């Protein structure tokens, strides 16, 4: 029930992540990048933004933050770790998730609502959903094109580590609904054991019906129930 949200210098969506945890009935804990523990949290979220200005590559410097040792330990114990947008980029740079995120195909920053299809129930964000279910959530990123070497990509697919794919409102995955050129329309992936998951879309911006779609609600419900189980 206790969910840590890490604030790096340049994080933007930490407040929304904390608020989403609270709105969905969890207990949010704010953690600073210089901290060396996660405050006994059951789950941890690495939020969106531009950590350390995203100089060099997105997430490249944040990966060396002091708090990342605690994130690694939490992940190794099987604890839920969620990376959203820049958090996803950081987890890829840290080697906790496979692949990498590069400049969007077409170079433009993309900011709009998209639909994503749940591909597996094995992650803390999707445990309460069935593969094939579709949720509406916003994206806002310039570097969200998921790439991996051909053999690595095959392994990600074969091992069922794709968590989310961009899709039409009815769940079709095709080029027309791929906002950034990601390989296989991949919007999110998970670790070998499923407990570490990253995605470019922002479920934390989609939990309040007053300000947009609510596709983030079932994802946070899953996270909070999973976090309870883990505790």
């Amino acid at each position, binding site marked *: 029930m206790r969910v840590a949200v890490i604030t790096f210098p340049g994080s933007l969506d930490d407040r929304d992540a904390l608020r989403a945890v609270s709105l969905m009935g969890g207990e949010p804990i704010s953690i600073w990048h210089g901290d060396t523990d996660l405050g006994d949290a059951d789950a941890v979220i690495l939020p969106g933004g531009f950590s350390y200005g995203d100089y*060099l590559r997105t997430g*490249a*410097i944040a990966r060396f933050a002091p708090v990342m040792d605690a994130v690694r330990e939490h992940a190794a114990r099987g604890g839920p770790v969620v990376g959203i947008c820049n958090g996803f980029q950081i987890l890829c740079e840290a080697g906790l998730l496979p692949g990498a995120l*590069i*400049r*969007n195909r077409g*170079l433009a920053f993309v900011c709009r609502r998209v639909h994503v299809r749940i591909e597996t129930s094995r992650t803390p964000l999707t445990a309460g959903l069935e593969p094939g279910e579709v949720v509406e959530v916003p994206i806002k990123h310039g570097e969200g094109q998921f*790439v991996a070497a*051909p053999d690595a990509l095959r392994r990600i697919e074969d091992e069922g580590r794709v968590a989310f794919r961009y899709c039409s409102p009815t769940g079709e995955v095709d080029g027309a609904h791929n906002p950034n*050129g990601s390989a296989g329309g991949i919007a999110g992936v998970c670790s070998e054991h499923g407990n570490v998951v990253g995605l470019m879309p922002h479920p934390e911006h989609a939990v309040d019906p007053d300000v947009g779609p609510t596709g983030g609600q079932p994802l946070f419900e899953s996270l909070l129930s999973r976090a309870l189980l883990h505790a």
Partner: protein
Amino acid sequence: VSRFHFEVVVMLKEGLADPQGKAIEDSLPAMGWTGVSGVRVGRHVALTVEADGEAEAHRIADEVAERLLSNPVIEDYTIEYRAEVGS
């Protein structure tokens, strides 16, 4: 202890699409250049390393390039030793 100057070039791996390179390449014909292809955009990093000798400096530069300046998942790098720049 001496100081050694290196230049590191980081490029996206062959076979990975390079959106920046493609945008530049696509703009060339409109400007009158029709025979230019294979445009790839990378990163050029200059750095100076303090070490006891060139071999040690090279080892440090290599470590920096591999662990921080490049992401081995998507990028390759090359290191050029330029000069000893004095103690």
